[in-house]
């Protein structure tokens, strides 16, 4: 659970079955498998039978919940090697989904954010989605100079792989970009960098 002074950071929920839905889609990444296991445990057999699970085994902290997830009698379990593949898989599943569907997301902030962008593009409303953060609070950072997205940023100052500028990670989270903003760190005096610190992971 994150305690933070960052007001723009999304407020996360706890995954529990939304009984009003007739169909359920649950997508998770890495450590997000743990809240997913808890969600599936709380579901009735009927809810499980109408649930599609998408799981990416990519993890920053190295946790893998695939074998636990395989224990549940869900409608379908789709496994992906990477988070971007899982988000693509979610896009495919939502394209065919109907009204009455509920979406559950769990994992890193970057994974939840990019999945939420897909859900929003299908017109899903906040009251049809639950999101639970799991694992480290490493950040997804958008470079204000070249537009590159860096995943799993753990330090205040880092070199952008896109434009090789030294970036400082600002504490503003953009829901639209699903990322924090990174700006040139030594724009005042070239070469003079602010103190590096570990982000609130």
């Amino acid at each position, binding site marked *: 659970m994150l305690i933070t002074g960052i007001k723009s950071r999304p407020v996360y929920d706890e995954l529990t079955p939304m009984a009003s*839905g007739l169909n359920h889609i649950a997508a998770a990444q890495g450590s997000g498998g743990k809240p997913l296991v808890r969600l599936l445990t709380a579901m009735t057999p009927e809810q499980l039978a109408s649930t599609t699970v998408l799981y990416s085994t990519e993890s920053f902290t190295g946790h893998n919940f695939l074998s636990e997830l395989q224990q549940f009698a869900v409608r379908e379990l789709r496994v992906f090697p990477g988070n971007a593949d899982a988000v693509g898989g979610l896009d495919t599943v939502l394209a065919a989904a*109907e009204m009455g*569907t509920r979406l559950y997301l769990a994992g890193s902030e970057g994974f939840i954010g990019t999945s939420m962008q897909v859900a929003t593009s299908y*017109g899903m409303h906040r009251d049809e989605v639950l999101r639970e953060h799991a694992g480290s609070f490493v950040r997804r950072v958008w470079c204000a100079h070249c537009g590159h997205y860096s995943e799993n940023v753990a330090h205040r100052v880092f070199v952008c792989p896109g434009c090789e500028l030294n970036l400082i990670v600002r504490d503003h989270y953009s829901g639209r970009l699903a990322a924090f903003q990174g700006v040139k760190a030594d724009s005042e005096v070239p070469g003079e960098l602010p103190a590096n610190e570990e982000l609130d992971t």
Partner: protein
Amino acid sequence: MSEAQHGALQLQVKRIEAVTPEINRYTLCAVDGSWLPAFSGGSHLTVLIPVGEETKRNAYSLMSSPYDTSEYQIAVRRVDDGKRGSVAMHSSVREGDVLLAGIPANLFPVSKHARHHLFIAGGVGITPVFAQLEELSLKGSSFELHLAVRGPEHAALGYELKDRYGDRVTLYGHDGQSRLNTLDILAGRPLGTHAYVCGPTRMIDDVVASAHGLGWSDSNIHFERFDDLGSTGDPFSVTLARSGAVIEVSPEQSLLEAVEEAGHTLPYLCRGGACGECETEVLELEGTIDHRDDWLSESDRCTNKLILPCVSRATCTKLVINA
């Protein structure tokens, strides 16, 4: 643009057409021929109808194009309900007459996030949908309409829409036999579909129950009941702190309308509790506020320090607002 005098527009009746045995359509324009205040699809107009010594305030949906504010159109169904407003509109109002009306307000706007708009209407409930479809069709949005009428002689407005939008409009009951089935209409819809229902209470309840049964969440179900158009409720009085004026709010008008009628102004945009523009500070309160807006947060409501005069009312012995 036409300026509202004490919150009321002066509208001249340009044309009256009987569109069904019970419904007349009125085309209204500004007395001085100027542009009327803009509105969005789903808005209604509160018309002040003189009935003997009294003035009735009836809300009617605007059915003309939101992109043409040279005139407004409303449809009035004659109901012999003892309130006599609609009867007076039918029997006493003539072409050329001048009517007073409020500024359009929207409590039934179309969703900005929908991927598909699904309208279900019955009888005179079709009126707000006219302007909503016009707005969506000009924006190029995806929509369809299902309209139930009581028989061929009640289908004229439906045929008009069918002419405009073709296959996107399905009529029921115009042939004396087809029936609208809400469950069939709502089933199997893609994500991001929004349903709008306007018609008799039975129809609204039916659509809401069917949608819930299919797992729709409330954010995608929109409806308008004619009886809750406008802010109505028990009368109360309000004191404007800056001028010290004490204003009585009658059961059939909103706090905003009462303040305007008394010759004062408050800021506003939507007049439907959605935009927050009219938010006003509450300086003193003995009693409770009946918050009816969609703007204030739960915590703002509890502290009772703010009120949205376009929709909210109060049950109080004293209410002083910073205006």
